[in-house]
């Protein structure tokens, strides 16, 4: 065509999507740990989810630091003299640290068997965990020039995905425990349904947007990216588990386990596409 196009690089690579996935699961597990104080059926998961959540925090933190091109400068983000509070990343860094501290205190309380303070600490940890998917959603939503990212629904979508993927891991951890799986089935059903509805809403507004939005929609619904997003993320990872869990067979443990696996694979795919696809068109500007 005789055009000279400068191909720019995407800013955030797939490792960031892995971080989103890990942080979502750990937030969901924290919710379950707190839920165990309110719902007796989840009691066997209390310690397991608290420990798993803390381990994933370490993994997520390492991923985040390794993704920086200057990993040793990660402490800059905690330097009060440098912090820029208009950036969601700054809030996120503080949230991660606060969550880590709360998790350590909570786990110590669990090990001591201190029931009185345990519930309060579980609540604080869960509230701080809620901040993690919210900040990751805002992290994308504040970029006004990016289609799909720049929607107010993004933090809500990340919270729903965190509940879905955390409950899925919880359901796998609770294998053989019919009572716990019954509760987690409810969590997975409604969160997977909410994710599917929000995806339809986001894709609808994207398709009816401007040139960049329409191109991004085309990218997300065709080719390899389309297969990952629509096939794996939306249909297999959100709609199918919601339908399976809603159907009369949804109460059987086998279906709950299959749905949990589908949700995990689907939410990983969704995070990958939601991160990568909206960056593609911009690289051609």
């Amino acid at each position, binding site marked *: 065509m005789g055009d000279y196009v400068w*191909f720019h690089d995407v800013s955030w690579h797939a490792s960031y999507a892995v971080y989103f996935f890990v942080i979502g699961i750990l937030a969901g597990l924290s919710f379950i740990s707190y839920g165990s104080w309110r719902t007796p059926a989840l009691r066997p998961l209390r310690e397991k989810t608290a420990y798993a959540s803390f381990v994933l925090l370490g993994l997520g933190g390492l991923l985040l630091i390794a993704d920086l091109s200057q990993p040793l400068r990660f402490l800059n983000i905690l330097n009060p003299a440098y912090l820029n509070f208009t*950036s969601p990343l700054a809030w996120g860094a503080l949230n991660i640290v606060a969550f880590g501290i709360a998790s350590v205190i909570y786990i110590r309380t669990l090990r001591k068997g201190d029931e009185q303070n345990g519930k309060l600490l579980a609540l604080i940890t869960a509230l701080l965990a809620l901040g993690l998917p919210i900040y990751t959603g805002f992290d994308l939503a504040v970029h006004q020039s990016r289609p799909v990212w720049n929607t107010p629904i993004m933090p809500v979508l990340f919270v729903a995905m965190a509940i879905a993927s955390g409950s899925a891991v919880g359901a796998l951890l609770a294998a053989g425990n019919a009572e716990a799986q019954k509760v987690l089935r409810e969590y997975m059903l409604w969160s997977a349904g909410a994710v599917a509805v929000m995806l339809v809403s986001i894709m609808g507004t994207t398709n009816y947007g401007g040139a960049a939005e329409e191109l991004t929609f085309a990218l997300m619904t065709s080719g390899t990216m389309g297969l990952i997003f629509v096939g794996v993320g939306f249909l297999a990872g959100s709609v199918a588990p919601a339908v399976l869990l809603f159907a009369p067979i949804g109460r059987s443990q086998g279906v709950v386990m299959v749905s949990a696996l589908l949700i995990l694979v689907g939410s990983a795919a969704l995070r990958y596409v939601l991160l990568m696809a909206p960056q593609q068109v911009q690289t*051609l500007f």
Partner: protein
Amino acid sequence: MSEGSKVSTGGSKKRYAMVVDTRRCIGCMACQVACKAEYDTPLGVNRTWVPYKVVGKYPNVKKQFLPRLCNHCEDPPCVRNCPVEATFVVEDGGFVLQRYERCIGCRSCMAACPYNARFMLPSHRTYTPITNVVDKCTFCFHRVTQNLVPACVQTCIGRSRVFGDLNDPNSEVSYLVAKNATQVLRPEQGTKPHVFYIGADRNTTEIGRDAYRKPEVMELERSAFKRNFKI
């Protein structure tokens, strides 16, 4: 680079801007070369670049050039998004600059910039020790504070690029912006860019037509483009 360097000598603050008269651009890429020489910009990345489109219908065709650089926005999303204030606006002059020693390399500013003006410096450079941090056009802050124009403006043989103080009613940029129909890139983003284009074709200021190709085809061209930049 000293943040304390004085730009204005009088009482009022300056607001530097660049006017790019695309009717005068001949696509010699001298601006790109001058910038590369000034900053030892590595292969594969650029502070300024000159893409073009071939427009018209044979035999009446021409190349429409669109010199690009950081727009030194009035409301820069990159500054807002940097978690450690590694990028900032110099109040006097409006330069958007980078603190290399503070940048953590999270690339949040790159994601925020609607103009792709920012890039990551590679880990190995021949002469310059600044690596693995985000870099961008500085409007040649070090030259402007010495009463020189930016390197790209200095070298532009068609006088397509004009640089000056918008707050000075007698400056050439003020005259050009006042007397000509100008446009900025992506005004809908609300960034209030300070690079003004005269004669820019809507065809060139929008997302490239390559974007309308199939992703697989696009990827082939992208990998061919990037092949020579693996350093």
